């Protein structure tokens, strides 16, 4: 394994563990305010400092990780759950009306600037984590559908698929038995990347006040709160920002590393 893959794995695992740990324990309770301790820079007592209400930022980051991870993960789940079957169906019936409708639908979703529509959805149906998930998830569907269709189409040309067809297997069965396992690597890698994009999108929506609502902490809203205080206490902006960077970086390194590691062509080259 390359060092970058290990770093990515470590960073991703760190945030996942922090989020899980926050259910059991945080250094401080995040709903207790201590105005006397507001905007304290990082110290032994508060490794990440305190915010404008005197809350411990490390505790906030830990609890905020739950929101980010949950939103991004479910959004990836929506994208994969709907996009992959659509892509498989389109590839199995290439050139049919079904394929045409799926692909044109994809193009249409791609034509919408994703964040604008996410803003529109959360704005119209009310801000909150669930609507943020839906908004981000919708844009994951065409990503997975297109990827799946493209990869599946090239597999359908392969002779082992022809052999399966000559064995009388149905398109659905071939898709499940031969196509899906052979594109699983690709989907895992893309899933990791969409996961990291979901974290960024959630942060953006929370920043403009359309993500998870108070009192649920979220990294994006911590940044929004920090904006007016950044000159006074830079750490209130640095801490959540660097957290997001570290999490996204970790996921991207993980995705890239997995791609190299899972790609049999590259593995042959390495040995």
């Amino acid at each position, binding site marked *: 394994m390359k060092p970058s893959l290990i770093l990515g794995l470590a960073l991703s695992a760190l945030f996942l563990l922090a989020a899980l740990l926050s259910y059991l324990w945080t250094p401080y309770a995040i709903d207790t305010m201590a105005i006397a301790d507001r905007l304290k820079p990082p110290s032994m007592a508060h490794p990440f400092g305190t915010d404008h209400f005197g809350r411990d930022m490390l505790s906030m980051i830990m609890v905020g990780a739950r929101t980010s991870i949950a939103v991004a993960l479910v959004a990836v789940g929506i994208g994969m759950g709907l996009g992959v079957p659509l892509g498989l169906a389109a590839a199995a019936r290439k050139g049919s009306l079904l394929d045409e409708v799926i692909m044109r639908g994809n193009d249409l979703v791609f034509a*919408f600037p994703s964040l604008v529509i996410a803003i*529109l959805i959360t704005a119209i149906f009310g801000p909150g984590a669930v609507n943020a998930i839906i908004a981000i998830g919708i844009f994951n569907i065409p990503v997975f559908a297109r990827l799946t269709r493209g990869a599946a189409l090239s597999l359908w040309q392969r002779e082992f698929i022809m052999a399966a067809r000559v064995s009388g297997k149905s398109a659905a069965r071939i898709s499940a038995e031969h196509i899906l396992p052979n594109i699983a690597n690709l989907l895992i890698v893309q899933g990791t990347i969409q996961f990291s994009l979901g974290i960024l999108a959630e*942060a*953006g929506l929370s*920043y403009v006040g359309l993500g998870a609502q108070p009192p649920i902490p979220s990294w994006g809203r911590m*940044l929004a709160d920090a*904006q007016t205080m950044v000159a006074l206490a*830079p750490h209130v902006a640095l801490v959540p*920002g660097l957290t997001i*960077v570290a999490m996204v970086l970790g996921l991207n390194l993980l995705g890239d590393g997995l791609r190299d590691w899972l790609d049999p062509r590259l593995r042959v080259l390495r040995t």
Partner: protein
Amino acid sequence: MLRYFFKRLTSLIVSLAIASLVIFLVVEVAPGDPASYMLGINAQPDTVAALRAELGLDVPKWQRFLAWAGGMVTGDFGTSYTYRTSVSQMVADRLWVSLPLALYALTLSTLIAFPAGIYAAARRGKAGDLAVMGATQLGVAIPNFWFAMMLVLVFAINLRWFNAGGFPGWEGGLLPGLKALTLPAIALALPQAAILARVMRSSLLDILGEDFMRTARAKGLSYRQALWKHGVRNALIPVLTIIGLQFSFLLAGAIIIEQVFYLPGLGRLIFQSIGQRDLIVVESVVMLLVFAVIVVNFLVDLAYAIVDPRLRARA
């Protein structure tokens, strides 16, 4: 070539028609009646009805859709519910901020990404490549609005080279306007440049494995000559796709960046209108953004045909 153009044009028009319908439907199912919202909770039912009639909200939805969509074609976006002024005028004012910002950012992003990507590909596996790739890995991970805050902290608050926000307008000349847009454009461009540089590099590396690159080397071209003369143009095909997609990211990203820098662009207009249930403005701005994205993708398709002679022949 002409056939290709018309084929793309047809699909552009169809996309626009479907997009307008989708936007209208999404906005129309939104809870909250603009008329009652504008008049407040204590308004009499007949006053609300009168306002509804005045705003044209009492006619069937499909008629309103046709009126709205028909107006769009002629450039008439209707009248704002809240301000009772022409939506076209409101949008046009804001467009003069958002569009230059997006183009500025796109230019910056391309100018940074192309050399970086080509440089990294030419030095695959060497220190230069690793440095560029490390930087892009970081660039991809940075949320642009946070990056914007950091830029403000360093260049506006500490160094005082730029203002922290606001926009002087273009009346004062080109330079003050561009200066006000510089930090926002950098904030938007750098993360996108990171993506673009990675695509440029990997697409070039794919091309390097092609048979025709070996042919070029057998002709006597050096590695670098082959990369420039035969690699870059072929690698442009996937890169163009990404540039097209990025325009949509830049427009959307601009909405958040405008919040950071208090810029009077489409992003602030859209937030304001959503807050005031000024649905017709919301519809129009979103439609305009979608229109921009679809047109840019149309232009990208045309650019493909210029780069790739196979497309000119096909279609």
